[in-house]
């Protein structure tokens, strides 16, 4: 496309000329190791997954159209799992964004020992998953520390892992593990806000809230999106802990899509599994589409 106008992230328009042959060769060369790997290990087999989702079983290869998808959407444990996973991500991701921004602003404030605090908040990243699981058991077991505290206050103990509170326990675990890293992302973004803009606002007698809402949030918008993406990835990874805490068949409200897929995998029901994987994939594509759109809309105007 010779002469087509491109805009860099700095807002500078430039004309991009047709790539030279050498450039093209180079560009393919640098990408190819990664691209070949991704094609072989993820993309091509995914077409086989699509094929599996469209036939009735791997032996007779009878084409059944969307039957597998209809079946799985009507499957009550799939519905339960999808609902739980969606609820968890919808609660945990925004909470992670808001709380880590709050922590970052707390540390940005004038308090001593900033770098020590930063290290403390990052420390959960180092704890092995299995050890997190042990400690969560010590804390939230029916006979655990939290319940002991509650009974001392003359209240009824709560069966944390086997009641409607179970998602709360996992949300706490997720936040504890991920806030630190999100926080340093926000701290970096906060320190990158040009001071003169804030000073002008102060001179114009803007309140702290106005400065936050009209200035800081504008500058932070792309970081917010980035943190949201990382948190979304990590909200799926929390399955490790859930799995180790509660096993294959946890309490209803902890039954995640990952449980469903793990169990289906184990029962070798490839049709169900493939259909579920494809549905999940489609949903994720929509989510990413929204994120990309949000970035185009809000993310770039104050960047750079």
């Amino acid at each position: 496309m010779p002469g087509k106008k491109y805009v860099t992230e700095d807002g500078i328009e430039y004309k991009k000329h047709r790539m030279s042959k050498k450039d093209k060769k180079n560009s393919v060369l640098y990408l190819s190791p990664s691209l070949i790997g991704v094609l072989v290990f993820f993309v091509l087999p995914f077409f086989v997954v699509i094929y599996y989702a469209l036939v009735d079983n791997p032996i007779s290869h009878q084409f059944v159209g969307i039957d597998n998808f209809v079946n799985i959407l009507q499957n009550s444990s799939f519905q339960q799992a999808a609902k739980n996973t969606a609820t968890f991500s919808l609660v945990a991701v925004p909470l992670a964004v808001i709380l880590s921004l709050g922590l970052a602003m707390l540390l940005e404030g004038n308090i001593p020992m900033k770098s020590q605090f930063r290290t403390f908040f990052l420390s959960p990243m180092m704890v092995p998953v299995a050890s997190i699981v042990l400690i969560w058991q010590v804390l939230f077991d029916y006979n655990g520390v939290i319940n002991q505290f509650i009974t001392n206050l003359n209240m009824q103990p709560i069966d944390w892992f086997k009641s409607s509170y179970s998602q709360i326990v996992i949300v706490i675990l997720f936040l504890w593990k991920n806030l630190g890293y999100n926080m340093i992302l926000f701290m970096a973004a906060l320190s990158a806000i040009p001071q003169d803009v804030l000073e002008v606002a102060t001179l114009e007698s803007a309140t702290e809230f106005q400065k936050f809402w009209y200035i800081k949030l504008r500058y932070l918008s792309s970081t917010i999106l980035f943190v949201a993406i990382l948190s979304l990835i990590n909200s799926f990874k929390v399955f490790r802990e859930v799995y180790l805490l509660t096993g294959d068949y946890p309490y209803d409200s902890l039954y995640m899509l990952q449980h469903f897929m793990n169990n289906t995998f184990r029962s070798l029901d490839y049709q169900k599994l493939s259909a579920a994987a494809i549905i999940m994939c489609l949903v994720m594509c929509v989510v990413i589409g929204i994120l990309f759109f949000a970035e185009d809309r809000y993310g770039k105007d104050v960047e750079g």
Partner: protein
Amino acid sequence: MKRKKVRITIKKVILTLVALIFAISFLLPTILTIANSFMSSTEINTNYGVIFNQYKETSYGERNTDYVAEKVNLKFIPDMVELSQYSTVLLKSPEYLLKFWNSVILVVPIVVFQIFIALGAAYSFMRFRGRIREIIFFVYVALMLMPYQVTLVPNYLVADWLHILDTRWSIILPGIFAPFSVYLLTKYMRRIPESLIEAAKLDGANEWQIFTKVCIPLCKGPIASVAILVFIDYWNMVEQPLIMLSDADKHPLSVFLSQINSGEVGLAFAVATIYMVPPILIFLYGEEYLVDGISYSGGVKG
């Protein structure tokens, strides 16, 4: 004027206290793990027996006759500092060291090669743009966001076709091509000013020289931070080995640790502490990178 000063001081004290409370609660599990690793198994049983001793049997089939407190005891300082758990782990049973080694030979190649391959891909995404490029990048982002259970099916199929199931390659190869670091490095590299690359070109640098002499040095921080993130993620892997490696001898310590019998909680804490050493070392060395390397972050598409 004076009153204002007092107010600011009070505000500062309150903020510090709030930060301190948060920080302590964040640090607590780490401290607890380390503290518990120095307790004897008797003491662990006394403290946590109510929770973990439902089975009341150790892995050797003996009945546990230790005294068990009625209530769970959260203690940060052992009654008596003992290294018995460590001596069991390090001296008496070679299996722990073996699993530790398993972890190392799984994770190190993944981190090293994933970053090498990602650097090339990121460079390509930065230097050359176009419709197809953007679509490929979208696929990378989509893959990165998928839970492991979605990519598990394709991974498993390929491992089966290549006859690498039950070998370490079935974990290492998909790990090497995982798109996470491609995404992060692309984001960082796209922030490199065009003018720098143009300048290098005018000086007669070819693509390879721009890549190795301009881009990689500029990305030192991001490379370090991506390496830390990828390392910590794979160091704690649980699902992959359980599915790909039916031979438990090849399992990394992260899996083994999660399967330690509940009668041996004390041992588990000691193993966990040992397992924490590499992440802590990497962290101490790389924390600055983790913080600096990230400061250019932001945006989904990069």
